[in-house]
């Protein structure tokens, strides 16, 4: 039994068996059963950053097919690269914010968040004027119909796009990273759903899909980005991307556009004549949890 020839042939047999398996898998993939083949390809899909342009193209196509089937309409998934010499920054005028939560809902619509259970990338906190910025006395569940209250002020919090992001550091599989334009993104097809990043983020900015997100067909925003607002699966983490799908095409994020009092400003931190730079140079700035050295690119300021 254990003669060398036998061993040799055993080895060959095994190799053949593996080869057959692969051929079968390939044949299976190539034949009509598109759905199953897609599932198989999704399973073996590699990290966004490791894909060749061809792989990326076919992956995007696969997702478009899948979304079209699910929503019964055309859905565009783009992979717009970051622009050169751009570092996005955000400034929020605490003295103007009235706590109406319009930014929260505009964000939900623009970025295809789950409607039920609700996921909100922006939390607006109501705080006592007497206590100042004090999270321990903040209320995220105030009634937005009754704003603004005389003795209160409002303090919206969302992903701060940290330059030194603890969420990225904590991810065991490198499913989240900082892009060259400063935006921290997540590969929803690579995230294993361990929620290390949710724990590591000091701003409550990361949200987990505890179940399959519900997104009614007529409420879908079909203009999506791979690393941004495309519909997410169950069991992965998501968060604000400064509306990557808009920002990289030179538009304002949805929350900036919708704010009725103009409390939200957005732009390129590297542009010395930009609005953001003007605010940073001329107003009193507050950085949330500055002591943690996360170096947010989200600045609170006080214009009055």
């Amino acid at each position, binding site marked *: 039994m254990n003669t060398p020839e036998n061993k040799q042939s055993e080895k060959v047999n095994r190799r053949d068996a593996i080869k057959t398996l692969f051929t079968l898998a390939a044949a299976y993939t190539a034949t009509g059963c598109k759905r199953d083949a897609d599932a198989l390809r999704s399973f073996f899909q590699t990290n966004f950053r490791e894909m060749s342009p061809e792989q990326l193209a076919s992956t995007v196509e696969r997702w478009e097919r899948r979304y079209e089937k699910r929503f019964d309409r055309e859905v565009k998934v783009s992979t717009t690269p970051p622009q050169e010499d751009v570092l996005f920054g955000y400034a929020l005028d605490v003295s103007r914010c009235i706590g109406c939560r319009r930014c929260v809902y505009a964000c939900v619509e623009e970025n295809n968040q789950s409607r039920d259970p609700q996921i909100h990338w922006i939390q607006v906190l109501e705080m006592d004027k007497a206590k100042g910025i004090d999270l321990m006395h903040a209320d*995220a569940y105030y009634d937005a119909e009754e704003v603004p209250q005389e003795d209160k002020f409002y303090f919206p919090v969302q992903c701060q796009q940290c330059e030194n992001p603890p969420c990225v550091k904590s991810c065991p599989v490198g499913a989240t990273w900082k892009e060259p334009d400063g935006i921290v993104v997540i590969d929803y097809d690579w995230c*294993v759903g361990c929620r290390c990043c949710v724990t590591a983020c000091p701003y409550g900015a990361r949200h987990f899909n505890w179940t399959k997100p519900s997104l009614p067909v007529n409420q879908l925003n079909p203009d999506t980005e791979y690393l941004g607002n495309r519909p997410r699966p169950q069991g992965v983490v998501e968060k604000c991307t400064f509306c990557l799908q808009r920002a990289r095409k030179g538009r304002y994020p949805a929350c900036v556009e919708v704010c009725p009092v103009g409390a939200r400003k957005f732009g390129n931190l590297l542009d010395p004549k930009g609005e953001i730079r003007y605010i940073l140079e001329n107003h009193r700035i507050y950085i949330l949890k500055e002591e943690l050295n996360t170096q947010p690119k989200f600045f609170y300021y006080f214009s009055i």
Partner: protein
Amino acid sequence: MRTIFRIIFNGSPAYFIWVIFLLACIIQGLLAYAGQFTEGLIVTHMRDSVSWGFYIGNFTFLVGVAASAVMLVIPAYVYNWKPIKEVVIFGELLAVSAIIMCLLFVLVDMGHPERLWHMIPFIGRLNFPSSLLAWDALVLNAYLAVNTFVVVYLLWSAYKGEHYNTRIVIPLVILSIPLAVGIHTVTAFLYNGMASRPYWNSAILAPRFLASALCSGPAVLLILFQVLRRITSFEIKDDAIHKVAELMAYAMGFNLFLFGAEIFKEYYSNTHHVVHYEYLFFGLHGEPSPIAWYAWTSLVFSVVAFLLFVVPATRRNFFTMNLGAVMIYFSVYIEKGIALIIPGYTPDTLGQIYAYTPSITEIRVAAGIFGIGFLIFTLLVRIGIFLLFEKDNLVREDSALENKVGVVRPGEDQL
């Protein structure tokens, strides 16, 4: 192979009832997990505010149990203290079962368990060295591999009636000591490194982990040894049991001291961060906390158990010693399973309070995993006892102990 089957399928009615009970736990756990797998983790009570809960709590506790095998290995090998050496292999079996449970608890906590391969170095994209969970996965698997290898090798040599090769066993056993410290330290660092959660961001977290682990694991073993020597021919000297109890007393004393140091710092400096301890022991904003009851029980149990173990008279009395061991087990289980994780998340990073307690699904899945772990442990212990002590009745029992369990003994000159 046949012998192994014989060992597994033969036994007293009590053994069969135990195994059937464990199988029932496993099956109901699988059913609960199937529901979670399709519905998502929404069937747990974890939410964005408290994003790790009972699963990761159990994981943390079991890492401690696994690491504590080292507590027996150090005195046995380093000081070459004979009575304990005989029992070391059971510490290693316990470690193997505990690590398997640990890995299962991490698995059921994941949103996408089928993507686990993303964590395999080179095939996936392990974020090493910056992610502490990546470190944890590596050391846990290394610890599992080393212990499994040693256990299987020792049992295999015993089976063949051969003497084991010291040059293989000793270095691996020695290696398992830093690895045991490593799995616990790295697990502590997983929490410790989160600047976002001041409750965990304290430098004595890792030492506290070690101290409490050195109580809980041996607590399991103490009870186990007494059961074993009653129902099998495996002999364990009272001396060995009391020595383990004594070591536990020191560990518990140290654990209480570290806890006191933490409490002093929080309450004396009285910064904002004290809210987490307030939530643990009392409650916040006039709302009583649902976990305060556990926290106080854990504290009272650990103080009482410490007193029982530190006084020689109660330590040597089997009734009070067993009482103390059970108390220590529960105290550490609460400390790691509940009092470590939940207050770290409450209030959350934006000051909001979500009162978490585990859901029925979480408890059922956890029971299933404990079922798997206990089943593995039961079978391994049975096989171990048979191969080491009962297989060969021709040899005088004493010398059987020398040759077979003593297998794990290092040559004195080598140390």
